[in-house]
């Protein structure tokens, strides 16, 4: 359980699906230091503080932009991201969010106009 929490909290490269995240919320009390993870523009390492089975705080031990100075961010505003592989789903939906073919053409036309305008 501690390992699951550590991985899930260990920043931008944490891999978790809904089940793993649910498990990670059922935590052993204590202080858990995560693995050093690459976060696009540098390395990141955090420590999770758990009490009463809930995540209370996260200490940022290493952060890409701060040259190793430790930073403290309280549990409300966790700057971590979750990663998953994209999978096609088949559930019924009311509406879909995404660029459409129509707006694709719209934007391509705009792009062409801008190319012309720029040279």
């Amino acid at each position: 359980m501690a390992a699951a929490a550590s991985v899930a909290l260990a920043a931008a490269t944490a891999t978790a699906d809904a089940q793993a995240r649910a498990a990670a919320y059922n935590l052993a009390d204590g202080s858990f230091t995560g693995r050093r993870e690459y976060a696009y523009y540098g390395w990141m390492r955090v420590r999770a503080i758990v009490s009463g089975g809930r995540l209370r705080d996260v200490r940022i031990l290493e952060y890409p932009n701060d040259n190793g100075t430790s930073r403290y961010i309280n549990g409300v505003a966790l700057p971590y991201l979750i990663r998953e592989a994209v999978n096609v789903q088949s559930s019924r939906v009311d509406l879909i969010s995404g660029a459409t073919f129509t707006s694709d053409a719209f934007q391509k036309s705009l792009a062409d106009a801008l190319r012309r305008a720029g040279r």
Partner: protein
Amino acid sequence: MRRTEIIMGMPVTVVIPERERADHDVDASAEAVFAYFRDVDERFSPFKVDSETSRIGRREIPPSEASPEMQEVLRLSEETRRMTNGYFDVWLRGRFDPSGLVKGWAISRAAEILDAEGYLSFSIEAGGDIETRGANDEGQPWLIGVRNPFDPSTVIRTVKLANRGIATSGTYIRGEHIYNPRTGERANGIASLTVIGPNAYEADRFATAAFVMGRAGAQYVAGLEGLDAYMVELNGDAVFTPGFAEYVQP
């Protein structure tokens, strides 16, 4: 009731649960929404030579003499440019194009038209950006799919939204088509970026700006109060904020 019309070069859809018919003329209300979008198109299209947007771009109208609606868009554009450190900018290579903000803004304004008529539940979608109110026909939160950027006929996640907005910036099928206003170069690095926020306006402007930031976009949105992101990378991985996971329909 569900109606779609092509306006501003994109499909605009209004969905109103059948139960609203008891209190409202839903067809007349949908028509009012479409009329509003047609008016926005006339005023704000960068492709119509006589639009106010085109005239401002040609410097025929000083911003101080623009219509109240255009002054609002100019003010919001400047605010967004500052909030995004210049990643969002309606002026690109000397051309004026507020499209990255007007779509979401128009959806939110159209939603206010239905609010004023006393509607409790509806959804308005324009070009893939959506604002939701209340509940769908089944009395449940609206089920909104996130389009697969690698296969637009499919959905990769479904979220449950009530009284929230959602917008996606992306590159579908071929190439990238959103420009980084800082460099004039095409934005790159990610396939799509979806933002959920308090309304379509907030979701749209930050989806536009965060998409231009490339792979740093999701991290940027993670730092914004009340906004969440689902970012699809070109390798087929998705990176998302913990708050986004709260909306996901398992």
